[in-house]
């Protein structure tokens, strides 16, 4: 465990040891950002909308006290979405999608000697391949989290109003009630932290793949598992430190 962590830190240092030119990194980052963003937006949209819908319906089911106003449902959906569901669930979904993609891609490049080909040309393969992925993830994840927040609240609205659990007026009153802008900032900070962890851990696992196709599969699985655990730990640490 400690050995892996040490190796991970050395790997992170190697990204900056002899980094490629900023123009190359910039162009690659844009390419990666487009890939991560476009490929993830559908799944993020589906998951977020349904999470918002389910949160709304289940909160309504639990809200049996007649003294509590129905607008609390909207309030609960907003708070749960912004503080936890949008950044964390989105990141866990992305750990599965983006993380396995990064680890699988780098692992395949490693076993087919494409990484060696870069090194022989005198290119820092870690910097060229990994740094743009991390920067791109850190650029795109917050955007996806914002979309997720919006869609989740919209999902709650649709579910609540279509099923008749709550009126549109009550829901809107709820989501506007006691709004704390810092919570959005907190969610975006978490998104940045999670993006860094997912991209760097998955890259680390993929970059050090050796063997064949079986090992690439194993690296992808390990990347996802490690990323999810790291996200959950970081979620707790962020909540403890920033709230």
């Amino acid at each position, binding site marked *: 465990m400690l050995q892996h962590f040490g190796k991970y830190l050395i790997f992170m240092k190697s990204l900056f040891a002899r980094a490629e030119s900023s123009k*190359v990194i910039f162009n690659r980052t844009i390419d990666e950002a487009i890939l991560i963003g476009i490929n993830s937006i559908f799944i993020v949209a589906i998951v977020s909308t349904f999470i918002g819908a389910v949160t709304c319906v289940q909160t309504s089911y639990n809200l049996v006290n007649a003294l509590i106003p129905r607008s609390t449902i909207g309030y609960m959906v907003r708070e749960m979405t912004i503080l936890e569901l949008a950044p964390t669930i989105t990141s866990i979904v992305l750990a599965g999608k983006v993380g396995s993609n990064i680890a699988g891609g780098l692992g395949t490049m490693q076993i*087919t*000697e494409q990484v*060696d080909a870069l*090194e022989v*040309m005198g290119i820092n393969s870690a910097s060229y391949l990994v740094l743009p992925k991390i920067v791109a993830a850190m650029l795109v994840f917050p955007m996806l989290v914002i979309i997720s927040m919006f869609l989740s609240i919209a999902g709650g609205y649709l579910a609540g109003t279509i099923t008749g659990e709550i009126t549109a007026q009550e829901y809107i009153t709820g989501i506007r009630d006691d709004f704390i802008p810092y919570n959005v900032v907190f969610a975006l900070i978490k998104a940045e932290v999670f993006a860094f962890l997912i991209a760097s851990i998955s890259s680390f696992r993929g970059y050090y793949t050796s063997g064949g196709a079986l090992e690439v599969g194993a690296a992808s699985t390990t990347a996802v598992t490690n990323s999810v655990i790291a996200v959950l730990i970081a979620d707790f640490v962020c909540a403890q430190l920033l709230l």
Partner: protein
Amino acid sequence: MIEIHNIHKTFGDKKVLDGVSGVFETGKTNLLLGASGTGKSVLLKCIVGLVKPDIGSVTFDGTYFTNNKLDIRQEIRRKIGMLFQGSALFDSMTVEQNVEFPLKMLSDMPKDERMDRVNFCLQRVGLENSNNKMPSELSGGMKKRVGIARAIAPNCTYLFCDEPNSGLDPLTAIKIDELIAEITEEYGITTIVVTHDMNSVIEIGEKIMFLYEGRKIWEGTRDDILDSNVKELNEFIFANRLMRDAKKVEEEEEEQQRAAQK
């Protein structure tokens, strides 16, 4: 000229290279010959710096490479072209982009000059009309050709080929061998080819180094190799029935000549 001196490499308990020294001459196709698992590819990786030897040094035209400063190693690496066993073409790029890649990354060449060079290199390896194909659309032989074009695109001084004809049919294998030999002669570069293919030895082996269990046990030319009296080398060469038959015919002819002289 590339010189290697006393290269040792161990992975875990397994000693892969055991004090290999030698000289690879400029303008010649130098072959690293040996059975599978004798350390040929590891030696090649030690030479290009992909694997760090435990002991020993590599010198490129008098410039010390192993353990030298990073910028000096980078400078040398930029003169290296390498053809990998599986070609190692970048999957996400077209043939054209693969060949253009080292030029784009390592030179300040404008786009039109780069494209001229790419087209020239592709033409040189006989792939004029494949610019927009993806690596997945290419046959094994075509991939090797693109690999060679990418290796020579930045005007490399040193060309390394790791089993260039593995997985190819005999005819394509010979064509690839011939292409490597032609390019070596044409550009006057230092070429090292890792192989276990006796056809390559006969076709292009101007200088051959035979490795056995991580040690160099024979060195010579393709003209000397059939007459060597190194047991391990003879076992390797004459493992092939055709080679055994050829040797038998040669011996019979020699015997007939001697009988005729008497």
